[in-house]
């Protein structure tokens, strides 16, 4: 099935400096793709090219089958954009701004529905400039939903939101995905990407470092796939085993291992043999954040 967003061999240079090199990915209907990378990795350049703000130096970019650069009114009526930085007129009221933007689209959502969708009830008459950071972010998402977007670009959409607000936005994104929207998401919250994204593209120095599902990325992390954490007697020298002792602080040891069962068996045998208590034993897979940090660690 062809992607709603198709990027093939995307390269972009600023003068002689290569910002993005040979980046490829595809987002299908009803799919969320998370674009990750440290600051300066090329995420912003990539997303701005896909949004149509920049013409790429080389490569092919298609959104809904069209070149987004110079995108016509019809294409722009089918996409929604949440920019990284707030971009709203501070002197208008929430309802006025939403009504203005909704008027650009056909079909379009009612302003009251947009306000309810992002949890801004009661703020209809509030001047945009006096909204809190989190409320402002919700408003920006509402603006992006004013039409009926088939493609949504979310550049750090939950920055500044409290946990409740973040989950509200997640619910909206999940709802949109269920309706078949293709969503390109960047975020510094790896937990968010883990919850929302079907596929993740990790960029480093302008190139794609790794692509895959959040599960696949965890497995691709170089230091192992599982962590064993426990508390034991202070100053006990742990034995050699199929693990790497990653952190030992506050009396709590953390082992990273690719063989969790063998490691626990060996650890238990060692403890029994020496009469050492192991407390608060915990086995967990590394989060996407752990995997991401390991994958993108600079040498």
């Amino acid at each position: 099935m062809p992607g709603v967003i198709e990027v093939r061999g995307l390269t972009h240079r600023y003068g002689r400096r290569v910002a993005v090199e040979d980046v490829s990915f595809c987002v299908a209907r009803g799919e969320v793709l998370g674009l990750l990378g440290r600051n300066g990795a090329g995420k912003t350049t990539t997303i701005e090219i896909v949004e149509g703000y920049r013409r790429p130096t080389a490569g092919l970019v298609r959104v809904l089958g069209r070149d987004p650069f110079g995108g016509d009114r019809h294409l722009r009526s089918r996409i929604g954009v949440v920019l990284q930085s707030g971009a709203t007129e501070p002197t208008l009221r929430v309802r006025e701004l939403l009504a203005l933007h909704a008027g650009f689209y056909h079909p379009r959502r009612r302003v009251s529905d947009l306000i309810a969708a992002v949890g801004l009830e009661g703020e209809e008459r509030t001047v945009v400039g006096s909204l809190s950071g989190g409320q402002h972010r919700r408003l920006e998402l509402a603006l992006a939903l004013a039409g009926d977007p088939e493609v949504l670009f979310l550049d750090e959409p939950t920055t500044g939101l409290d946990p409740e607000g973040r989950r509200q936005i997640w619910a909206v994104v999940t709802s949109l995905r269920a309706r078949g929207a293709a969503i390109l998401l960047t975020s510094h919250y790896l937990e968010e990407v883990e919850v929302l994204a079907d596929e993740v593209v990790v960029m480093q120095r302008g190139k794609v470092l790794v692509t895959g599902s959040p599960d696949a990325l965890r497995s691709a992390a170089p230091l192992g796939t599982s962590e064993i954490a426990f508390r034991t007697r202070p100053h006990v020298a742990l034995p050699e085993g199929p693990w790497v002792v990653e952190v030992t602080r506050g009396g709590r040891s953390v082992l990273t291992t690719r063989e969790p069962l063998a490691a626990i068996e060996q650890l238990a045998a060692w403890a029994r043999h020496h009469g050492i208590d192991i407390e608060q034993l915990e086995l967990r897979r590394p989060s996407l954040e752990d995997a991401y940090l390991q994958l993108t660690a600079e040498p």
Partner: protein
Amino acid sequence: MIEDALSEPDLSLGPRSPLALVPGQVRCQLLMLVRSPLPAFITLVVPVMLLVALDLVTPEMTLRSLGGVRVAQFLTPAMASFAVLNAGFVDTVVGTTLARERGILKLLRATPLPSWVYLAGRLGATLVVGAGSVAVVTLIGLNLLHAHLAPGGLGPFAAAAAAGLVASFALGVAVAALVTSADSALPVSYAILLPIAFISGVFFPAPTEAHWLRALSDALPAAPVARALEAAFARGAAHGPTVHQLLVLAGWTLGATGLAAWRFSWAPTGGRHRRGAHGTSHRPPGTAPTP
């Protein structure tokens, strides 16, 4: 549930043509102008303040170079022309630059709103605010400073103000294309406007001795506005903008439009919206964002 709150679009809300979007843009631009202290200060307070202050420091004085008319009779149309230049030029430079640096223009470029509709909205609001400011200045001149509007002068006076507002709006958009930060928009605007206004006879009657200066001011956009307003105010029906004045304004309007088409960027060019490792602003989608 949030999922339930995200409704389907309402298909009973019909499509709107680009032309039908213009009134909404004008309305919102007017709301922004009314609610922001800076545009109100630029377009209304500055001309009114100058009108009253200059009249107060020249009580009962007459201007020999204008055949002995009272200063208030000169100042009223002169400050009306300054109001036109402030509303059309200064406010457009400041407002457009600020909207770009805040990322508002960038976000609009991702919507189906045609760029010309946005600019038409700004122009419409400029015409309304400029007309209001000219009206206030003129009414103060007539009622408080006892200036006299010549019979039949209202029509040509309004026509001159409208032509001046359109030309200075185009120039404002062009200069906004060159200004790289919102902080510098106001000083740059006045650095351009004030010298031109001085030599164009906006504050004092234009010098007649220096022919080169007169020729220079004739070619600049402020003098046609000031002289057309002054002529209509003082001499009435038969003294609307001359063909030469209209041609000068049309030339500046076309030139400014061309410059804006070439240089105008809808994406922030600096300041807080500068993003990513590169921060360079390039022309956004649908480029050729001409007024």
